[in-house]
């Protein structure tokens, strides 16, 4: 059980956990955290699978850097919309609210 296998396993479990959390929670902020957790799991897989014997490979690491910034941009956009939606409808999920 090499360290990389352990982190790949962690990545797989985080993906499953994030996926379940994303679908089960209705609160927008929790859904966003579940998305970030699933994203971290995917990044762990992206780097872990490319480094079976843990010799660093710069290409997937650069991809993960790009992925983290893209995930941050998406999270920030979701937060902006979510706050505005909360202010207008007083709701933190997408069920009811005006204009249904």
């Amino acid at each position, binding site marked *: 059980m090499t360290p990389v296998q352990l982190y790949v396993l962690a990545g797989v479990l985080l993906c499953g956990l994030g996926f379940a959390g994303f679908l089960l929670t209705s609160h927008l902020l929790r859904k966003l955290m579940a998305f970030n957790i699933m*994203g971290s799991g995917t990044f762990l897989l992206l780097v872990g*699978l490319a480094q079976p014997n843990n010799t660093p490979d710069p290409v997937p690491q650069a*991809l993960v850097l790009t*992925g983290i910034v*893209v995930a941050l941009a998406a999270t920030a*956009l979701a937060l902006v*919309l*979510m706050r505005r939606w909360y202010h207008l409808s007083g709701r933190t999920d997408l069920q009811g609210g005006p204009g249904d």
Partner: protein
Amino acid sequence: MLALLIPGLLFTPLALAVLCLLVNFRIGRLFSWVGIIVQVLVALGLWATVADQGGLYYDLGGWAAPLGIELRVDGLAVTFVLLTAVVASAAALHAGAYLDPRKGYQSYFWPLLWFLWAGLNGVWLAGDLFNLYVGLELISLAAVGLVALGGEAPALRAALRYLYAALLGSLGYLLAVALVYGSYGTLSLSGIAELAADHPPAPLILVLAALGLALKTALFPLHFWLPAAHGIAKSPVSALLSALVVKASFYIMARLWLEMGEQAGSIWLAQGLGALGAAGVVVGSWQAFRQSRLKMVVAYSSVAQIGYLFLLFPLSWGVATTTAELAQQGITLHLISHALAKAAMFLAAGNLILAVGNPQVSALAGVSRFLPFSLFSFGLAAVSLMGLPPSGGFVAKWLLLQASLAAGQWWWIGVLLLGSLLSALYVFRIFRASFLETGSDDPFYHPPRSLEVIPMALAVMAIGLGFVANLPLTVMALPVGGGVP
């Protein structure tokens, strides 16, 4: 000459996004008119160049494929770049006159539009898996920004539901990219195509990519986010979303299927996607028939037409290559004719709602008498949507019919016919409403002529596509014929 066309194509939309962000709506409109002319010319130039010289690989930054990012400029990509140039410029010109410049937030329309256009061009041309992911994210975030522009509650809810669905879809695709890089060590699509023969990819790769991209393409039953997003957004934005943005993720899935489908795909995945597509056609059309708001009818019709696209997978897996080519041609032509027709329909619907002042279908009474031009463009677009001869939609369905017969999968023929019938159902319902007579005076506001000409031009193109169908089909089939520096 070519060395300037591709940079021109990639540079112009991004430069204009930067310029338009620094100025207000009116000046941004001026910049955008210049940008539209440049983009259309460059797209035409690129299309002509590929038409006579064949496709090529373009190494960005000067670095060759597995290390650097290469652009695959083949017939299919260039045809879609030209399609994007036509539809996006029509939507932009319509938006210039349709949107109200006085509102502050409208100045962000142009930058978001140009980023969306840059992302679309990036996806059509990309030959690298991770580059497709970043392009897809740029498209999704710009599209969500466009839907939420203005900040009203219904638009926000639609934008949030769209954003969360798009993010989950992108993660599914990114997971597939991680598995591909883990098993091949390279991200370039052409490299993977060569290696896929003796290193069969894990089937999960294609399943994950299919699920993620199907969610972003709003395939039934993952279409829940589309009607609200496309129905509530302003009509130029809905035209862009329904005609182009939804097709980008399908295009990626089609590319992956053509590269790795033989080894990684299975009869279950192919027929399953086809069945979901067929169900989407039926359910989408039925829902469209029952909608009370005009733009929601058109939005659900998008869900139905997207269902047709997924007939590509069953008709191109495990069948003779000639049948597969027939199916690819049919699907590409359907994609092009639907893009033109749906953009025309949404723009025409926008004009009708502007004139009537009420989004309900029932409020269209008397429109046929006082607003014949707008209604006629809506009707022309509907002809292509229903697939009646001589429109492009008909030729596409005819090719799909032949492909299904040649593949021996006759059940898709039933779907094609039923789909056309159902689409006729919801289109004629709109016309019935508009033919009802009201009083003799004219209660409607007449939108400026420039607003009404654009959807008519698009609708005529959708019909005209049927006559010149073999031109795009021959160019589309051009593979990459050696690298032309």
